């Protein structure tokens, strides 16, 4: 990238840190820092949920998977946007209404209340949440470094430090206020950028019909909705079979919706009425972005087939560069910073939220609830900031060497653990009055142990399963919740009524 491009990207970074500084003026107590004073407006809230999910995977990985597998991967573009709607509608509507009265700061507060377990379930859930967030964060930093080192031709480690310092700066300064405001900017950048880049790349590749014709010549199944149900798949890229897609649905739609850095956002909305239109707005905006990214990946595949572009060969994951390389080919150099900003916005918007999630779990769920119940507001906020700093250092250490293959497996496992551990307690807690504390703890632990064993067995090739390993962990966690809940004493009516538990999404009488 030339000097002009570098200046634009540096200005963008300065703008983000400026947002952090601006937001820091609003921070008066820990609630301001951790849940933005429960004061986020409709669009800030909606785009916060979307951009927390919209990670490095969304731009690079989505186009990359499209490049490698064709149309069968389009389901990802339906399931992931649907996860934003599921999170807001099924988890958010009720939890926000309860939190308005109880003052929850994290989802652990809800778990502790609903499952009348101020220590056991809070600790289990917080520890699993911190571990998942760190694993996921490593993946995000690798994405940031990949983009920065590619665009600026700087060493991977430099890029890692630059990316980490920028995100850490505005997150530590302004907490969720800064993240919310940055998400608004980042969300608009991603939407406008993808709307600009996608159609131009698709047109340059010869238009949609031509792209599809080229895909069909590579493998006719690339133009179908799924690959044939053959196990093991007939090619490495042909894994999106109907059975696998079922597990993909649960993994992406429910696993991501229950992810700590996603579901905690529902506590920050200013008004419960936002939950009326926000699911639709989040789904439509996100689906639009993702469809365009995916088709840009198809376009890149067609352009490579016709020798219009060449992907880098000295990297472990060439297909993930398809979006950047195709955009660089089509646009004159002057547009390079736009491409950089789109990708960086997507990666940073998840990174910041993950860092704050770790900060809030450490300061609020571990320190305030376990170690020092009388901790002052100032000390909780300060500890959140310290935890964000420490988690960044740990993450940088883990991401420092070039990403090993094990890491990609760990990141997918991170989403899998969310499905196997958090989805059942959340759904059962909100909608099933018979769900008990013991059932919730059992479902989390059985889910975690189940997915760990099955995943590892699959990784070392002891077993080969047709679905994603998390699906089996999820089924085990549902079974554990039902069996253990029915075997243990029913929760008190008082707790169930306070937490609005029952087979309804919204209590219209309230």
């Amino acid at each position: 990238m030339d000097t002009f491009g570098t200046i634009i990207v540096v200005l963008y970074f300065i703008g983000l840190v400026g947002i952090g500084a601006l937001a820091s003026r609003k921070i008066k107590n820990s609630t301001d820092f951790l849940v933005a004073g429960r004061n986020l407006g409709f669009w800030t809230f909606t785009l916060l949920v979307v951009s927390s999910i919209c990670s490095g995977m969304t731009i690079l990985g989505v186009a990359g998977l499209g490049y490698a597998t064709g149309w069968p991967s389009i389901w990802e573009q339906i399931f992931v946007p649907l996860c934003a709607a599921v999170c807001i509608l099924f988890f958010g509507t009720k939890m926000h209404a309860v939190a308005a009265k109880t003052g929850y700061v994290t989802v652990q507060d809800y778990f502790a209340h609903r499952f009348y377990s101020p220590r056991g379930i809070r600790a289990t859930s917080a520890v699993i949440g911190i571990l998942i967030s760190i694993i996921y964060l490593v993946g995000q930093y690798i994405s940031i470094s990949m983009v920065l080192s590619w665009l600026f031709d700087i060493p991977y480690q430099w890029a890692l430090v630059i990316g980490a310092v920028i995100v850490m700066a505005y997150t530590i300064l302004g907490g969720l206020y800064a993240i919310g405001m940055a998400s608004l900017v980042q969300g608009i950048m991603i939407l406008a950028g993808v709307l600009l880049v996608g159609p131009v790349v698709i047109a340059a590749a010869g238009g949609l019909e031509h792209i599809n014709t080229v895909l069909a010549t590579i493998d006719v199944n690339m133009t179908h909705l799924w690959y044939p149900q053959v196990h093991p798949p007939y090619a490495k890229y042909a894994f999106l079979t109907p059975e696998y897609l079922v597990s993909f649905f649960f993994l992406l739609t429910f696993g991501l919706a229950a992810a700590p850095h996603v579901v905690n956002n529902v506590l920050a909305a200013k008004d419960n009425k936002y939950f009326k239109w926000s699911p639709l707005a989040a789904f439509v905006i996100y689906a639009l972005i993702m469809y365009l990214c995916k088709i840009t990946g198809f376009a890149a595949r067609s352009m490579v087939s016709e020798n219009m572009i060449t992907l880098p060969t000295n990297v472990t994951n060439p297909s993930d560069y398809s979006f950047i390389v195709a955009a660089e080919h089509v646009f004159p150099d002057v547009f390079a910073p736009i491409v950089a900003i789109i990708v960086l916005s997507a990666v940073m918007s998840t990174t910041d939220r993950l860092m704050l999630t770790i900060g809030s779990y450490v300061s609020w769920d571990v320190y305030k609830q376990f170690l020092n119940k009388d901790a002052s507001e100032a000390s909780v906020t300060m500890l959140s900031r310290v935890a964000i700093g420490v988690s960044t250092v740990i993450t940088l250490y883990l991401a420092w060497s070039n990403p090993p293959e094990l890491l990609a497996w760990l990141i997918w496992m991170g989403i899998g653990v969310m499905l196997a551990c958090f989805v059942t307690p959340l759904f059962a807690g909100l909608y099933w009055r018979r769900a008990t504390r013991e059932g919730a703890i059992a479902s989390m632990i059985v889910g975690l142990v189940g997915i760990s064993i099955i995943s590892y067995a699959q990784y070392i090739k002891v077993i080969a399963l047709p679905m994603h390993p998390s699906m089996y962990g999820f089924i085990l966690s549902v079974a554990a919740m039902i069996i253990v809940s029915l075997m243990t004493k029913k929760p008190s009516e008082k707790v169930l009524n306070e937490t609005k538990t029952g087979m309804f999404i919204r209590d219209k009488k309230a």
Partner: protein
Amino acid sequence: MIVGLPTDTFVGIIVVPVAISLLLLLWALRW
């Protein structure tokens, strides 16, 4: 074939997101 895709693929990629959007619209209208 529609835009180079088998008809069922084309219908699938349009119908599913539209159906989800309609369900979410229904949720908002019944609020």
